[in-house]
């Protein structure tokens, strides 16, 4: 079985994000970038499936700027076999929107013919939660989103989904697109020898133009603002006062 995993280069989750002064977005100049954490979980799951003997090959794909090669190398060090970079822009601030990403991925899927695409449920930069679903739509494949458990058997994926109020287990016929949630697994630390080996693994480059996909943004960012500052709490004198405040002031009881 062949698995394809798309990985996105995003602002590192430890970085304190600053909004650009003109409100056009967040400042991405000179900040640490890393693999989207949900994509790391997706790569980890693919590697575990390979270690279990379920999968035979893992191809990782990243779309964006040349620097996304670093992200691909990380995925290769985790255990992916091959990488494809789709060079779509030279502007680090340009986000490639979900529909364009899904279209580009569908071209790669047509060429690579994987049995399964495992993707992060969303990227932590703009939280779209759309790419996996759009890709399944474009391909006409089944989809299972928010996975917290994936089992492959008899040409099907049995996926446990984290939904409001509990867990839902569904079966989808392969090929399919699965998007993963936080609790699916805990990604490994890459070992030093695997970093060395990753340098020798193939990394192929394509361009969005050659794949004939228009990546011009369709959305216009009207405004970006900092989240409101947290205000200080209040000290209450007694449990009774707390209950009173929760009832009448906060309205949560």
């Amino acid at each position, binding site marked *: 079985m062949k698995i394809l995993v798309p990985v996105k280069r995003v602002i590192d989750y430890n970085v304190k994000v600053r909004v650009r002064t003109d409100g056009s977005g967040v400042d991405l100049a000179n900040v640490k970038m*890393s693999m989207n954490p949900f994509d790391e979980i997706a790569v980890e799951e693919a590697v575990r499936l390979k270690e279990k003997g379920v999968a035979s090959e893992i191809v990782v794909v990243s779309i964006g700027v040349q620097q996304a*090669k*670093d992200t691909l*190398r*990380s995925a290769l*060090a985790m255990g992916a076999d091959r990488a494809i970079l789709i060079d779509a822009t030279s502007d680090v601030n340009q986000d490639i929107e979900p529909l364009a990403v899904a279209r580009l991925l569908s071209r790669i899927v047509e060429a690579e013919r994987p049995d399964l695409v495992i993707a992060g449920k969303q990227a932590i930069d703009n939280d779209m939660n759309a790419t996996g679903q759009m890709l399944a739509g474009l391909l006409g494949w089944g989809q299972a989103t928010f996975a917290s458990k994936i089992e492959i058997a008899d040409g099907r994926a049995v996926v446990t989904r984290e939904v409001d109020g509990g867990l839902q287990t569904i079966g989808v016929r392969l090929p399919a697109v699965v998007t993963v949630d936080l609790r699916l697994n805990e990604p490994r*630390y*890459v*070992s*030093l*020898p*695997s*970093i*060395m080996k990753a*340098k020798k693994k193939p990394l192929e480059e394509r361009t969005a133009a050659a794949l004939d996909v228009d990546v011009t943004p369709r959305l216009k960012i009207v405004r970006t603002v900092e989240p409101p500052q947290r205000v200080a709490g209040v000290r209450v004198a007694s449990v009774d006062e707390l209950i009173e405040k929760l009832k009448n002031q906060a309205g949560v009881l």
Partner: protein
Amino acid sequence: MYLNETQEQVRETVQAFADDVIRPAAEALDREERFPAEIFDEMAKLGLFGIGVPEALGGPGFDTLTYAVVMEELSRGYASVADQCGLVELISTLLVRHGTERQQAMLPDILAMRRKVAYCITEPEAGTDVSGIRTTAEKDGDGWVLNGGKIWIHNAPVADTGFVLARTDKEAGTRGMSIFIVDLHARGVERGPKEHKMGQRASQVGGLNFSDVRLGRDALLGEAGRGFHMMMSVLDKGRVGIAALAVGIAQAGLEAAVDYAGTRKQFGKPISDFQGVQWLLADMAKDIEAARLLVHSAAVKIDRGLDATRSCSMAKCFAGDIAVARTADAVQVFGGSGYIRGFEVERLYRDAKITQIYEGTNQIQRMIIARELMKKGARA
């Protein structure tokens, strides 16, 4: 940064491991003076021992700069953990350079921490002046018989194999010393009690006594009489390692101090608003960056095969000195809290002090720098 993509990737992975696994364990390890076998097992799986060992001999085969980066990041987690990495690096470098094929066969076990090693030079009468060692190995058939004692040996209480510097020719001075690979479970080997140290307290340090320990023909590493020179030849790399370890301690102190200064309020404001505190933080940051650059430049010189002696001594000396001075500043920023057990900066200050003492005291580093100046001139 000037690190290449691979070095940066190594840094990120070790940094994450240090943040998640090492740093949270440090306080308890220090308090209990415990050998962190479980952390070393995980590190072995990640390939964090024997970083420079070539792929053909079972290591990842990284350069000295990468090694320095790893040492700093591990030490930012906990210096005792980094020091084990430094010790294995020294021993494996010796084995890679001078070991026979049979001797190198122990490398996989050493890198996996299945075989714990010790580097045994210091004696009661021979500290800085290694030429004073009295441990002897006398020829006996095809082997030798070892007699003498070593003190303050890292890993002595737990090690399986010692790399022991002994005198093989009493008349020949530093040309009469050889390195022997000694099974520390053998008859005639006695371990002294574990020392209770000021800092780096998870490192197990103690003495070893050898009485009529029989060594086979395979026990000799490299050529007889070349022990002192072999040891000296790995010192450059050893000093880069300890210098990077010192930078890691200081960096942990800076991080703690910056966080604390931003949250601790006195006179109605965070203390980071006061210039007196800001200047402390600024001086810490600039010295740490300067030390790091010295370490990296020394590492790059080694990697390019240039004369690195002066740079390595400068890096070791400067990084050790600023680690002590700047962790003292971190304590200062914490006020009374910095003086209390359980606060990280209190431990960092204690952990820093030994970096001015081991791997050649900082007086000796200055002596080397001065000697190089006299010999090769002020420009280099």
